[in-house]
């Protein structure tokens, strides 16, 4: 006898439709899974058997073959358990075949017959056409994000069977999404002192400029970076769905509403491997941290402690906004549009940029600096020196500007940039710069001097002009970029290589 049940399997952030075919025939009792299952998927036999027995079903003492079609798609994880169980019940004539018509099944089974959620529910549902989806109750909220889809969230295999047989009514999961509870974000008002660091955050948020903070340990780099997501506008519907899909596929916890509305903030440890950062894994094809940070902020603390090849893997996604991960089994594209914020000490002792202040040997400094490739460093439009706040700053009660006030300016500036139709200011094409960021009298002189003195490279020139555009937008200035805007942009772009070579540059 044959049982056919539709389900879906996750590869990267895309769901692929899978038909679970179960054949029960005479022969010695056995259970075989074919059709490119991974280890977790193949182990379904143990879970399905125990769950069926716990739910009062009979385990067929026959030869059972499970085929997961199409065999070209690799089936990863335990999400096909429920579909296998239902198909087996149909094949062993414990369920009439017509009850599965127009339905699809997702979920992992526990040995006690409970239904457990699987990562990537959102992506999986999209692959299931217009069928009604039976899935674990814990995933129902996430599933409801796909509009116009009948979704039945249930807790156990037993209740699934009862509903299928008509003994119990199908629960309707048309529940209203819970009110969007404002998630408490760290506030900029908590940051003491740091006028330049705060302003750099504002510019980064307004223009989408990547930011590098240099400074000694304890200067408050992490504290500043964690305030950046609060300055960004909430995610648009499209961006929210995109980020939610990635978080769902990566198995990250979703907010109560089910939809990721706040820009995510991801801060991987510097021991992260390149797979953890950009995604992949030979079998699972999980999205990495840079995709989890999609539409939000990726914060790399202790940038120079990351392995060089890990950092260089960031260059393509920074350029293209997606990361393509190719493995023998499959090639997957993950979205990866993020605002990169990094922090590092200028040298191993941490005091290196103050002229004459470093205690490191030349070799140690050179090795430290070599870890950052020039092309990566070049991606940072904003590079600021963060110093430790003074005791007065820390103990004083001078009120600092709160996130809400800064955010209002950021949103205003972003609106101005959006009206130009060129995306964020960081993405203004070079050939449009003269048109959207023309230089006022005097601004060109400032740039010319910076170029002549070697502080600014030709590549850096465009980046400074984009940052100047953002600064002008933040001030509500007109079409032209003035000398003050350009000078501010230049002052927010110190040369970290210069801190190691600073002495050299000065004596030259």
């Amino acid at each position, binding site marked *: 006898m044959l049982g056919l049940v539709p389900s879906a399997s996750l590869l990267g952030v895309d769901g692929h439709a899978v038909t679970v075919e179960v054949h029960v025939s005479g022969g010695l009792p056995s259970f075989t899974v074919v059709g490119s299952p991974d280890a977790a998927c193949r182990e379904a036999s143990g879970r399905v058997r125990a769950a069926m027995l716990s739910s009062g079903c009979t385990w067929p003492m026959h030869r059972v073959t499970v085929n997961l079609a199409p065999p070209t798609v690799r089936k990863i994880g335990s999400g096909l358990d429920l579909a296998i169980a239902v198909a087996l019940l149909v094949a062993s004539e414990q369920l009439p075949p017509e009850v599965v018509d127009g339905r699809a099944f997702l979920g992992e089974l526990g040995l006690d017959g409970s239904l457990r959620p699987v990562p990537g529910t959102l992506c999986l549902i999209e692959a299931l056409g217009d069928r009604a989806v039976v899935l674990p109750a814990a995933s129902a909220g996430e599933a409801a994000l796909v509009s116009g889809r009948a979704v039945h969230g249930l807790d156990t295999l037993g209740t699934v069977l009862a509903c299928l047989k008509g003994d119990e009514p199908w629960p309707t999961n048309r529940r209203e999404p819970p009110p969007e509870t404002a998630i408490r974000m760290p506030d900029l008002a908590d940051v003491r002192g740091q006028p330049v660091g705060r302003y750099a955050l504002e510019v980064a948020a307004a223009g989408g400029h990547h930011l590098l903070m240099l400074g000694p340990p304890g200067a408050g780099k992490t504290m500043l970076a964690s305030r950046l997501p609060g300055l960004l506008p909430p995610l648009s519907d499209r961006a929210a769905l995109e980020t939610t899909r990635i978080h769902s596929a990566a198995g990250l916890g979703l907010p109560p509403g089910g939809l990721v509305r706040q820009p995510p903030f991801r801060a991987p440890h510097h021991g992260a491997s390149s797979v953890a950062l950009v995604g992949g894994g030979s079998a699972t094809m999980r999205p990495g941290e840079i995709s989890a940070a999609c539409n939000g902020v990726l914060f790399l603390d202790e940038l120079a402690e990351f392995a060089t090849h890990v950092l260089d893997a960031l260059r393509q996604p920074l350029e293209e906004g997606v990361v393509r991960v190719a493995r023998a089994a499959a090639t997957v594209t993950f979205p990866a549009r993020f605002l990169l914020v990094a922090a590092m000490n200028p040298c191993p002792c941490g005091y290196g940029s103050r002229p*004459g202040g470093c205690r490191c040997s030349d070799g140690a400094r050179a090795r430290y600096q070599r870890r950052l490739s020039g092309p990566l460093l070049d991606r940072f439009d904003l590079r600021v020196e963060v110093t430790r706040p*003074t005791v007065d700053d820390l103990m004083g009660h001078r009120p600092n500007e709160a996130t809400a006030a800064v955010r209002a300016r950021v949103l205003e500036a972003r609106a101005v940039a959006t009206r130009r139709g060129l995306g964020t200011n960081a993405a203004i094409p070079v050939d449009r710069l003269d048109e959207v960021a023309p230089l006022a009298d005097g601004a060109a002189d400032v740039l010319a001097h910076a170029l002549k003195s070697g502080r600014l490279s030709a590549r850096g020139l465009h980046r400074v002009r984009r940052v100047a555009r953002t*600064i002008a937008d933040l001030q509500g200035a007109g079409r032209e970029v003035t*000398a003050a805007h350009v000078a501010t942009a230049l002052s927010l772009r110190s040369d970290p290589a210069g801190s190691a070579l600073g002495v050299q540059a000065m004596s030259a």
Partner: protein
Amino acid sequence: MSIDRTLGFTALLAGHPAVGPRRLTELLAERGAEAGWAEVGGDASIDPRRVLADHRAAGIEILVLGDARYPERLLADPEPPAVLFVDGDLASLGSTRVAIVGTRRCTGGGAGVARELGRELTEAGVTIVSGLALGIDGAAHRGVLDAGGAPVGVVGCGLDVVYPSRHRDLWTQVRSTGLLLSEAPLGVRPAAWRFPARNRIIAGLADLLVVVESHAKGGSMHTVREADDRSIQVMAVPGSVRNPSAAGTNQLLAEGCAPVRDATDVLVALGLSVASRAAEADRRTRPDPVGQTVLAAFDWEPATLEHLVVRTGLRLPDLALALEALLAAGWVESAGGWYERVAA
């Protein structure tokens, strides 16, 4: 044995990683060059004439102790180099020599002082000896070149091994206009022990040693000890007590060493006539009132943008614009996010 063979073996011995200056002198005196080479286990298949030919082809003179052209001053040294490799004009050594040394990790202000001293002492007819290192050394050499003088550089590696490589241009200029000296033959990479050895030659060549900036511990302090051993006067440029790269020089001053405020102090110490130097008119354009506020906020210490924002209370765009103007006019220098006032 021919002189060429002896010279070749001497060069080989001088480049042996396990043969320091003292051992070299001993070996040459007790064994002679060829037997010495065998004693240290040198490769017998190397042709000493070939080594010599390489040096001659590169235009490098080999002066052994006792050579007529050997620098007179070093003859009287307690530890004279047994052999010197010379590239350039020996006449550059002149009659009165001042060594200017200091830390590689100096402030922009320190480098500025070194360069100024190099230039003004050269103009007064003094020869400047230094070590071609990054920081103070390089700045001193550049000052000599500014004045059109002939710098003397003493280095710790082979004369074809440019170290530090960032000083390739400066290295070439010193060689072509002045003189490069080393105890090591061609091809010898810089080894840690060669730098203190090099420092003793710098001290030995000088009539007076000026330390511009030095950390509390550092190569410059070693040069100072070598100068003390040779009863050569040491002078130091005072620095801010908060400047870690002036801790060594300030310590020297506390111990009673004479301060250097400008080239005149050095010239007086040398007993040279001090031509009345007309104060050079400052060609920098005077800063505007905002610029003056910013300059005053430096307190003569390196500062970040953040320090300056807090001290001046200016808005960032105003401050940034003022800083750009000060940078353009040469009142301020910047490196790696730090700004430094360099002129009064």
